[in-house]
C-alpha cells in the first residue's frame, strides 16, 4: 500500500492547533511510520503539492492569500479537514465581522489609532495579502469533508481523527471530542 500523503495548513489562526498537533509528542514518530507529511508550517516546503490524501486546515479565511490557499488545498487534496474552531466557525479570527468595512477599520485601529510611531496602515499589495471584509469559516469557501472543532482540539482528539484516517476509516468523533471552545 502506498504511504498516506498528509499535509497541514495554517490560515488565519494563532497556530495553537498546530501546537496541539505537536503535542502528539512521541505518537508523531508513529505517524511518520505510516504517513508522509508533505506540506506543513513546520516543514520547509514552499509549494502545496499535488495528490495529497488528507489535509488538516487550521484557521479561518481572512485574506486573499487564505482564500487562494483554501482553493489550492481543495483542488489538490482528496480529504480536507477543518482543523480547530477558527476553521470550523471563524472563532476569534471572525470577531471583527460585525464591524462594517472591518478590514479597513481593524488596520486603522491597529496601525494608526493605537500606534505610537510611524502611524499608517500597511499597504504592500504584492507582498502583504489584502484582508477580506468578512472572515469566513473554511466550509463557507470550499467543501470540507470532516470537522475537528476545539480551541485548540486536544492532541488525543487529533490522534483519534488521524488514526481513523490512516486506517482508511471515517474520522467519527463523538461526545466531548466535538466541543467548541
Amino acid at each position: 500500500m502506498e504511504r498516506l500523503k498528509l499535509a497541514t495548513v495554517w490560515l488565519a489562526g494563532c497556530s495553537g492547533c498546530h501546537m496541539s498537533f505537536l503535542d502528539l509528542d512521541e505518537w508523531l514518530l508513529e505517524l511518520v511510520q505510516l504517513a508522509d507529511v508533505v506540506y506543513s508550517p513546520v516543514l520547509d516546503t514552499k509549494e502545496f503539492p499535488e495528490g495529497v490524501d488528507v489535509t488538516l486546515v487550521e484557521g479561518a479565511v481572512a485574506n486573499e492569500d487564505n482564500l487562494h490557499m483554501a482553493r489550492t488545498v481543495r483542488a489538490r487534496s482528496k480529504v480536507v479537514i477543518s482543523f480547530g474552531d477558527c476553521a470550523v466557525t471563524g472563532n476569534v479570527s471572525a470577531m471583527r465581522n460585525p464591524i462594517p468595512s472591518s478590514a479597513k477599520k481593524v488596520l486603522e485601529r491597529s496601525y494608526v489609532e493605537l500606534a505610537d510611531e510611524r502611524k499608517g496602515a500597511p499597504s504592500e499589495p504584492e507582498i502583504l495579502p489584502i484582508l477580506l471584509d468578512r472572515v469566513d469559516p473554511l466550509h463557507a469557501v470550499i467543501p470540507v469533508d470532516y470537522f475537528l472543532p476545539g480551541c485548540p482540539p486536544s492532541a488525543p482528539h487529533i490522534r483519534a481523527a488521524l488514526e481513523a484516517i490512516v486506517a482508511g476509516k471515517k474520522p467519527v468523533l463523538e461526545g466531548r471530542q466535538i466541543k467548541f471552545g
Partner: protein
Amino acid sequence: MAIKTLTIDGQLVSAREEDTILVAAREAGVNIPALCYVDGLTPVGACRLCLVEQQGTNRLQAACATKVQEGMEIVTNSPRLHEYRKMILELLFAERNHICAVCVANNHCELQDMAVRHGMDHVRFEYLYPQLSVDVSHEQFGIDHNRCILCTRCVRACHEIEGAHTWDVSGRGVRARVITDMNQPWGDSDTCTSCGKCVQACPTGAIFRQGSTVAEMERDRSMLQFLVNAREKKQWNV
C-alpha cells in the same frame, strides 16, 4: 389529584394531570433536551428544543408546554427530531456571535453542552454577525447580547422569583433583545435589586458576574430551586 397514563418512548408512564410531557418524561428518566425550561419557572416554549412527536398527529408538541393526556403516545427521540434539534442549535449559533473560546461561560454553558449532545460539529447556515452591545453599567453584573439566545429565563426568574420584573423583551424576531426597565442601561435601573437571580438563570455567557474571565464563571442553579421550594412547599432546608 388525577393520574394520567401515557407512553413515552415505549415506556408506560403515570403522571399527575397537571404535569407537562417534559416533567413526566424526566420523572421516568427520559431527559428531553431544553434550553428555555428551568424547574420552578413558568414554561414558555421559546427554544423549541423539547419538541416531541405525538402518535396520531403530524404536529410536533413542545414538551415543556404541553400537558399530559390519557393514552398519549410520545416519542422524544427520532432521526427527525434529532435533525430538527441540531438545526435549531445551528440557527442559534448563527444568529448571534457565540465564540466559545473567549466566553465567560466556556465549559459551563448549556448551549455548548447541547451542541455536544447533538453532535453539532459545524454550522451549516450562514452566520449573521450582528453588531451587538455589551452593557456593563451595573456595578456587579453585565449583559453581553452577543451570547443571548432569548430563552427569557432571566425575565421569568426576575419576575416570578425575585418579583422585580427588571428584565423584559423588546423588539421582534431577529431584532428581539432582553432589556432592563424601559430599555435603559442596567446600572440606571430603579427596579433591579442586584439579587443575581438572572445570572444564575442564564444558560449561556450572556448574563455574567463582572470579574469573571474566560471559562471562569460557574453557576449555582439550586438557588432558584431552593427559593421555589421554600415558597411553594415551605421547605427551608437545602
